[in-house]
């Protein structure tokens, strides 16, 4: 229970359905007065809201301290990925390595059969294969299935997403009907531990080296300097410090050579991608030639594509139309209609 409207309604709906619900909130960083501000999610005020909601719906509520685990899984990965010139998605690790790992283990110790969250996604059992399927939330605008692609069958077997069958308006309506104090609460969009959106400053506080290097154009000519590859993301236009008659975008980051490559918008487009570490949720991997849709970042409108090759947990995919800003480190999640087939991490080389 983050103190937001989604997990609050999830808890309230389950309690109303007669489930024996235990509310848990994760403390992810030091909340003592006077400590440097770290994030906006799960702050003292959010914990206060979560506690009030739990009291209102009449369930026990506890705050579990996952500061160490959050730092070791989510934060360290975030720092390492940027240092390697990739663009990480901390929410995926928070879901797969914390909520549906550490938190599930903790809940199991308390005798719980399931862990429910406020994610906009659905989990269903396939009658024919017996496998648990991850499906997108019915609210296309809020769908969070992209952030859940690493979940395996054991994790999905213990997962519940009560708001996944609702749209946001219905969630707020439920919250009002249930008298939840958080019904009108604003939702956070940014990465919870980088509330001001300045990920470069956060990384530098975490010890990222601000090693200056060259900015090159797509022909390899040095056209500027940068203050560290961790400050850049593929597709980024702002903050390059270049003057150019046409808009320039980051099209590549080479952490080893400490180089950022920029180019015109057209240079951002690519028709193929390679994803590694692929987790096939729905069963065996699709055969080469299979048609699917692929999402390459959270807000990306999935694009039709064809599976062109597969070796172990690495897959190659070709889009019907070129896609812009395929950023290494982000996830490529593959869908068949509403069903998440699986997903992997976008790799550097095509």
């Amino acid at each position, binding site marked *: 229970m983050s103190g937001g409207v989604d997990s609050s309604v999830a808890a309230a709906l389950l309690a109303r359905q007669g489930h024996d619900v235990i509310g848990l909130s994760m403390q992810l960083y030091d909340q003592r*007065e006077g400590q440097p501000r770290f994030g906006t999610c799960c702050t003292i005020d959010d914990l206060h809201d979560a506690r009030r909601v739990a009291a209102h719906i009449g369930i026990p509520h*506890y705050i*579990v*301290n996952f500061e160490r685990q959050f730092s070791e899984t989510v934060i360290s990965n975030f720092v390492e990925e940027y240092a390697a010139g990739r663009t990480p998605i901390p929410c995926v690790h928070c879901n797969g390595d914390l909520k549906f790992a550490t938190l599930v283990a903790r809940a199991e*110790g*308390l*005798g719980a059969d399931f862990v429910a969250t406020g994610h906009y996604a659905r989990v269903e059992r396939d009658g024919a294969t017996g496998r648990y399927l991850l499906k997108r939330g019915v609210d296309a605008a809020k769908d969070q299935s992209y952030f859940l692609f690493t979940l395996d069958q054991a994790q999905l077997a213990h997962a519940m997403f009560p708001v996944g069958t609702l749209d946001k308006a219905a969630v707020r309506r439920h919250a009002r009907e249930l008298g939840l104090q958080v019904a009108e609460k604003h939702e956070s969009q940014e990465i919870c531990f980088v509330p001001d959106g300045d990920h470069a400053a956060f990384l530098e506080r975490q010890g990222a080296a601000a090693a200056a290097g060259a900015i090159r154009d797509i022909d390899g000519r040095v056209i500027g300097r940068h203050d560290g590859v961790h400050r850049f993301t593929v597709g980024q236009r702002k903050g390059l410090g270049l003057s150019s008659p046409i808009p320039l975008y980051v099209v590549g980051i080479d952490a080893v050579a400490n180089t950022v490559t920029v180019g015109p918008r057209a240079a951002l487009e690519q028709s193929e991608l390679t994803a590694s570490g692929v987790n096939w949720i729905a069963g065996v991997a699709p055969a080469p030639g299979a048609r699917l849709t692929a999402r390459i970042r959270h807000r990306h409108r999935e694009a039709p594509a064809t599976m062109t090759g597969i070796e172990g947990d690495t897959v190659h995919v070709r889009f019907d139309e070129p896609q812009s800003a395929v950023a290494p480190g982000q996830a490529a999640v593959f869908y068949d209609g509403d069903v998440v087939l699986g997903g992997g991490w976008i790799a550097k080389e095509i």
Partner: protein
Amino acid sequence: MRIYFDHNATTPPAPEVIDEVTSRLAAEFGNASSIHYFGQRAKAVLDEARSQVAGLIGAEPSEIVFTSGGTEADNFALRGIADVSAGRLHLLASAIEHEAVLNTLKALGRHGCRTTIIPVDQTGIVRPDALAAVLTDETALVSIMHANNEIGTVQPIAELARIAHARGALVHTDAVQSAGKIPVDVKTLGVDLLSLSAHKFNGPKGAGALWIKRGTRLAAILTGGKHERNRRAGTENVPAIAGFGVAARLARAKLASEGARLAALRNRLEEGILARVPGTAVNGAREPRVPNTTNISFEGVEAESLLIALDLEGVAVSTGSACSSGTLEPSHVLRAMGLPTHRTQNSIRMSLGFGNTEAEVDYVVERLAGVVGKLRSLTRAGR
């Protein structure tokens, strides 16, 4: 079923206390400083409470200054002495003090006082030679708690006070966890200042006292009107203080009998756990200890999980201290005793009180065995 084994955190008010507080709240609204009839009635309530509280610790009523609780009493003692000790600016406290003392000491350290922490041995006792080693001719005050809130060990206050006085230092003891549990007599202890809190022995929250030995110079920390003989400004919380008085009277009357009863219960609990649950050990000296407290470590179990799992079984216990958001930090007390990190994170405190029964103790031993076994099986499964 709900079982409350967390009486060192707070206690349920005695029925007599509830009657006293509610009836005084309804009937005695006067300001005890007023000269008229209403003020006199309120003043009479305070006077009676002051006598009762003084009686609990063998003091004179005029030596009792009512405060909002134990934390304020501790602040008053340390800050009040630091304020008047020009020239002697060295303050000492033990490593296992309550945060009310430790954090006040830290604050005074930031304001020009020199502060030193006295270590404890591995049983949680301040050794006289450890105190002697850090005392100086500049030491103004030594603050050592009478009984520890987490492990219950009782410090040799009388001996420590003699050593401190020999170097010209004053002595404060936080008796919040001993008063009402074991005999507390200011003359036997030989101290100069002593803190009390009503809600630790079936009194109401929001009432406490600092006993100040007659003749001790001490500055007020709350300044304003001339309440409490100029030592603590602010209109007295008459109903809570009246309840404090009743709680003190009750505690004094049943001290011997209730102490023996709780010791038997606590020992039954402790022996039951040590016998039924493998991988358990008692933290700290088992004697001298207040009769209601035990602190036990459970190998391979996280205290946070154990605490939550027990609460879901209807059993309320605690660990050392909770931080502002309500999660756990490793106990500074267990750390000061030199216990390894894993033991500071796998230990829980159980503290008994009036109303606890043998049947409850046996139930808790039973539930603990089950819960610990389950948590350990998950840990072994590699989760």
